[in-house]
């Protein structure tokens, strides 16, 4: 009896903004090739991924060798994207993504991520963000 093993995609990306388009295209290609049940996901994933990569690179990568780590997987009813940067993180515990953000541009990106994803989580420091898109809705 076959069961689908969820393939986890891992990437290490140099911390330069020019890298963003490439990794987004990669994720969208993977999305196209896998069966899933999640509405409007191409647009939502692109919005969220663009912001997550931009934030990770802009705020988390200070020296030329800095890199961001990306993890991505797709199940039938769930898609997960994780981005971790080597920066110090930020005080997400005191951010409210629903209202006008205090953190200006970083906040605006987070607000957009929050709007398109079903769940958003951070590690303690705030240099790892994990978003989840849920299907069956």
């Amino acid at each position, binding site marked *: 009896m076959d069961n689908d093993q969820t393939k986890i995609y891992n990437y290490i990306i140099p911390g330069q903004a020019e890298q963003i388009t490439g990794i987004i295209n990669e994720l969208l290609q993977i999305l196209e090739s896998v069966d899933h049940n999640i509405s409007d996901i191409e647009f939502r994933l692109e919005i969220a991924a663009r912001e997550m990569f931009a934030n990770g690179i802009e705020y988390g990568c200070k020296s030329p060798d800095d890199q961001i780590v990306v993890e991505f997987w797709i199940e039938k009813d769930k898609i997960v994207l994780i981005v971790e940067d080597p920066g110090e993180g930020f005080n997400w515990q005191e951010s409210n993504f629903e209202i006008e953000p205090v953190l200006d*541009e970083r906040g605006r990106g987070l607000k957009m991520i929050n709007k398109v994803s079903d769940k958003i989580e951070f590690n303690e420091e705030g240099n790892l963000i994990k978003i989840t898109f849920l299907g069956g809705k």
Partner: protein
Amino acid sequence: MQVEIKNNSARIISGEELNLINRSEFEDEFKKLIEDGIIDITLDFKNLKKIDSSGLGKVLHFNKIVEDKGGNLKIENINSEYVKRVFKMIDLNNIIEIN
């Protein structure tokens, strides 16, 4: 990115993306116009395919500056479904005139 100035109005024609990479260039072009006293500005997005929160932030920032000076900022020629949807998501047409 191109800038066209005619009489006392200007048109900024973006390239394919407005993002983290070129937001400073975008801002520099805008600042030059303001310094020259031009406050009737059109953002021509016929080439624009992708925009992120950096790009959006600049657009909103420019709008505020122009409004504070009694001028007018508007957006024209949106051609990309992605850009249309992003603008719709943030209700941009409630803030800036979009043609």
